[in-house]
């Protein structure tokens, strides 16, 4: 009962935050909406029992990515912004066809998944995988993508420095 209330509260917060990201006229307000959305998402991870993922969500996304966003916005001192949507015939055409495509994709998704039995309850706060289990899997079966990701991170760090250098 209380888990259901928490789920609906966090889900509504996440969706409102997501809408705020794309609808707020000022960029800094968009970042704050993204912060709200990601905090709610971390709460949903805890609700699903993925405590480690929730921890990394807070540390990486909120602690690193969002701070970087805010830093760049303050650095550039943006004045512009706002939602300028050109209301032409092609806008309605493209928007309508995208909406139709979305309905088709969701329908296909549902058709392929419907009838699959997923046992268990998502909102019981029990840890679905312990840190020990995750670490053993990460460093035995998935060691190759782990190492490749570390190489990619190094390349991205060097690339970011070179690109932003004058």
């Amino acid at each position: 009962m209380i888990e259901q209330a928490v789920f609906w509260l966090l889900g509504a917060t996440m969706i409102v935050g997501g809408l705020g990201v794309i609808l707020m006229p000022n960029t800094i307000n968009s970042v704050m909406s993204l912060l709200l959305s990601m905090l709610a998402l971390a709460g949903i991870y805890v609700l699903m029992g993925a405590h480690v993922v929730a921890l990394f969500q807070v540390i990486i996304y909120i602690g690193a990515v969002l701070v970087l966003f805010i830093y760049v916005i303050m650095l550039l001192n943006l004045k512009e912004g706002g939602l300028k949507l050109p209301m032409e015939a092609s806008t309605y055409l493209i928007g309508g066809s995208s909406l139709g495509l979305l309905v088709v994709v969701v329908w296909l998704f549902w058709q392929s998944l419907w009838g699959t039995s997923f046992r268990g309850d998502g909102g019981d706060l029990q840890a679905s995988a312990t840190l020990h289990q995750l670490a053993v899997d990460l460093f035995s079966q998935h060691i190759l993508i782990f190492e490749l990701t570390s190489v990619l991170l190094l390349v991205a760090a060097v690339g970011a420095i070179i690109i932003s250098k004058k």
Partner: protein
Amino acid sequence: MGFYHFLSLGIILFTIGAVGFLIRNNTIVLLMSVELMLNSVNLIFVAFSRYLYGTEGQIYVFIIMTIAAAEVAVGLAIVISIYRLFGTLDISKIKLLKG
């Protein structure tokens, strides 16, 4: 709550991110829309990991988070150099390719 609750939440968040990517002009907001889409995929991965009793979903979420951090670092470096070059971040005004 069933699996479909979390799946629907992920689909809604992905749609919001995709629409935001299409309708906004500001480059930083475009990057944030990409972040929203990545987050929704993470949510769906964790939901599958939860309901199929596996750890792979959560491990892929860690990898996606790392890739997202790298992407944001490079993307914001590109944003800074675009701002230096054009003096604006409005992508409808940046048309070197005359598209």
